Structure formats: structure tokens, C-alpha cells
């Protein structure tokens, strides 16, 4: 038997085998055909594809299915924002609402290294773990522990812990998904519209005297800001100033007046 015959035989044998298998598989794919809605794939294409789960569904694929089946609102994807909403609306032929202002997270604590420690914590580097030891190592029970639970919660790498041991948010990377808000055990992070310029960066309801003894930047509830505000936008409840974003005109008087430098313009 020469080489050519072997070659032809080999090609014939494998080709024949492949052909038989191919025919069987084509028949099987007809028999076991699954009807999928082509809209699902179209919607999936316009989604960010980060599979972050911020919409409440298990990934973008699941969300696309639910949107097409009308179980989820077209506004459901917090990452994509208005742009994606418009595209999904276009595919499904639905009315699109007005564009909403982007919201970015604000960390309501300026403590970090400015806040004194009760003890030296050595253990698992996670805020929730630190919390288990008598509400954390910081003297202030409301403050940021700086162990980066929010950093790990962020799927986009938008949060870092800065030199003051405080989370710093990069708005260029942030997609307003809100996963950091949910991850913080002290509920220090909130989402607020970019037009809300002035923020009280403290969350402590402790009395002024105590705050002053443990933290150089905490709100002591002195009410100076409330007095100086021309718009009456600041209220102090339980030793913590709160700004009403509806009334605030971002004049900056309170920022100058605050003895602890707790109130700040956002970056």
C-alpha cells in the first residue's frame, strides 16, 4: 500500500465519520432547538457587560431577559445610566424618561488618621471584621475604619484608601452602581447628585466634647454653621449638622465658619 492510498483512506474515513456525526448533530440541534427571543441578545449588546449585579439580577444576561419580559424597568441598569436607558428604550420601543443627573458617592467621614484609636488592631483587614471587636478600634463608633471593604466591593476600581486611611472616590471610574454604599458597615457612604456641592463630612452623633477629644475634624454640633447660613439650610440634630440640598446655594459661608473644618465642597 503506498502513501497515496493511505492518505485517501484516512481522509475518507475521518471525513465520513465527521459527516455522519455532523448530520446527527444537525438533526439534534433541530430537535432540541430552544426558542430564544432575539431582543434579549440585542439588549445584552447595549448593556455595559460588567456583570456587577447592581441591578439586582445575576449579571447582564439575566437583566436583559427580565427587561425584555417586562419584569425589570428599562432604567434598571445603574451603570449605563441615561445612555443605555435610551438604547434599551429604542430596542423595545418604550418611552424614555428625562435624563437624570449623575450621582456620585460621598464618604461622610474625615476622621481616618485624625481620629484616635482605642487599641491596636491586628487581624483580618476588613471593616466588617474590625467591627466585630467592640465596634472597631477607633474611639469614634461612627467613623470610617479604613480597611477597604468598599474598595473590594467596587467592581470598577474607583475607590482607593488614601494617605489619611480614608476611602477616596475617583468619579471618572465611578459608575454610581451603589455597591460601596451597601458594603459600608457604618453606612458612611451615600450617593448624591453632583449639583449638591456642600457636604458635612461627619456621621457622629456623639456629644461635642467627646468628638473634640477623639477627632480633630468631627462635627461637634456647635450650630455655628446653622447660624451663619443665609438660606437656613442647615439643621443640627443630635449633635450633627445636616444640609438641606434643596435650600443650599453653595455660598460657602458655613465652610469658612466651621471650627472643625467638617463641612467641605465636594471635589
Amino acid at each position, binding site marked *: 500500500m503506498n502513501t497515496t492510498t493511505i492518505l485517501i*483512506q484516512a481522509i475518507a*474515513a*475521518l471525513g465520513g*465519520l465527521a459527516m455522519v*456525526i455532523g448530520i446527527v448533530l444537525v438533526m*439534534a440541534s433541530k430537535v*432540541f*432547538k430552544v426558542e430564544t427571543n432575539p431582543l434579549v441578545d440585542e439588549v445584552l449588546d447595549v448593556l455595559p457587560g460588567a456583570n456587577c449585579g447592581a441591578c439586582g439580577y445575576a449579571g447582564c444576561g439575566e437583566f436583559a431577559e427580565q427587561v425584555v419580559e417586562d419584569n425589570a424597568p428599562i432604567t434598571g441598569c445603574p451603570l449605563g445610566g441615561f445612555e443605555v436607558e435610551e438604547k434599551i428604550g429604542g430596542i423595545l420601543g418604550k418611552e424614555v424618561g428625562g435624563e437624570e443627573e449623575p450621582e456620585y458617592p460621598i464618604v461622610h467621614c474625615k476622621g481616618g488618621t485624625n481620629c484616635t484609636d482605642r487599641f491596636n488592631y491586628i487581624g483580618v483587614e476588613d471593616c466588617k471584621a474590625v467591627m466585630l471587636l467592640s465596634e472597631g478600634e477607633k474611639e469614634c463608633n461612627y467613623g470610617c475604619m479604613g480597611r477597604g471593604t468598599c474598595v473590594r466591593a467596587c467592581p470598577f476600581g474607583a475607590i482607593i484608601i488614601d494617605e489619611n486611611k480614608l476611602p477616596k472616590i475617583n468619579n471618572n471610574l465611578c459608575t454610581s452602581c451603589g455597591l460601596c454604599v451597601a458594603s459600608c458597615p457604618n453606612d458612611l457612604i451615600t450617593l448624591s447628585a453632583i449639583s449638591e456641592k456642600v457636604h458635612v463630612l461627619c456621621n457622629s452623633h456623639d456629644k461635642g466634647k467627646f468628638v473634640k477629644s477623639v477627632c480633630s475634624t468631627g462635627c461637634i454640633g456647635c450650630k455655628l454653621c446653622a447660624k451663619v447660613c443665609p438660606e437656613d439650610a442647615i439643621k443640627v440634630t443630635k449633635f450633627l449638622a445636616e444640609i438641606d440640598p434643596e435650600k443650599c446655594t453653595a455660598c460657602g459661608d458655613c465652610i469658612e465658619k466651621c471650627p472643625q473644618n467638617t463641612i467641605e465642597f465636594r471635589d
Partner: protein
Amino acid sequence: MPDNSLINIFLDGVFIENFILIQFLGLCPFLGVTKETRSALGMSAAVIFVMTMASAVTFVVASYLLGPMNLDFLELIAFIVVIASLVQLVEYIIRKHLPPLYKSLGIYLPLIASNCAVLGLVLLNRMEDFSFVEGIVFGIAAGIGFGIVMVLMSAVRERTGLVRIPSSIKGVPYAFFAATMLSMAFVNYFEVIPI
């Protein structure tokens, strides 16, 4: 193997030559799909089906197509083609009838195609010169052995999911520890059943 009776071949496939824990074939689904018993069961069923069918089809292909034409050197390629198409078939069936299982198996379902356990099985069948029936029995046995280990492992991992484990060994490292313990149990079958 001194005695090639079917019951011996069966016990051999299930325990003594257990594909996962003794021959360490097919380890990727062993660690990948054993997080919950439900998907482990589904995976085992798929593997049993593929192994049984592969034993039968490759026997036919090898003895009636490649053998007479003296094309034994093509065995490996032909076997892989057969296995891959069987996996495709299983994928169709599961996607049609068990969509939740299809989702939970994910990438590991198409990976059966390149699973060394299945290819290992058909090559072992050829090496041992098993007949058609013997090959099928060995295929079923290997699949069942695979399934037993998968289910045992998933039960272990489901329960240890509730236990406090040091964070440094949580997840895959812990799974390897559990695999060690299981493997120790199976190695002892060498002495229980004389070969």
C-alpha cells in the same frame, strides 16, 4: 486484572481505578462544579451519558472503521471528534430540558469535551482490549465512580460552607484539603478488593 468478568470490571471502574481520586483524571469539574450537590449530580449524569456513549461509539469506530482500513494511528483524532460531538449532543439536551442546570454548569459542560477523564476512558478501553459490552460496562462504571466522588465532594463542600474557615484557606485551598481526605479513603480500596 486476572479475571475479566463484568462485575469485576464494574467494581474496578467505580472504586479501584476511580477516575478522579485514583487516576486523577477530570479534576477540573471535580473542583469547579462541586459547590452544590444539584449541579454536581447534573454534571455526573452528563458524564455518565458521555462516557457510556463514547465507549460504545469509539469501539464501533475503532473496530469497524479504522481497524479494517489499518488506520489505527488516527484513533486519537477520531475519538476526540466522537467525544466532542457527544458533548455537543448532551449540551443540546440539557439546554432544552434543564435550563437552570445548563446555567449552573456554565463553562464546565463544554469542557467535558476536553475532559481527560472521557478520553482517558476510551484509550484505556483500547489498551485493555475490552469487548463492546465490557467497554460499555467499564464506561458506566467509570461514570458512576466519577459521580460518586462528585456527590461526596459537593456534600463536603456544601456543609463546610457553613463552617468558619480561616480566610487564608477559604475556597479552593480548602477544597484541595477536602480532596486529600477523600482520596485517602479511596486509595484504601486497593486492599479491600484483591486485584
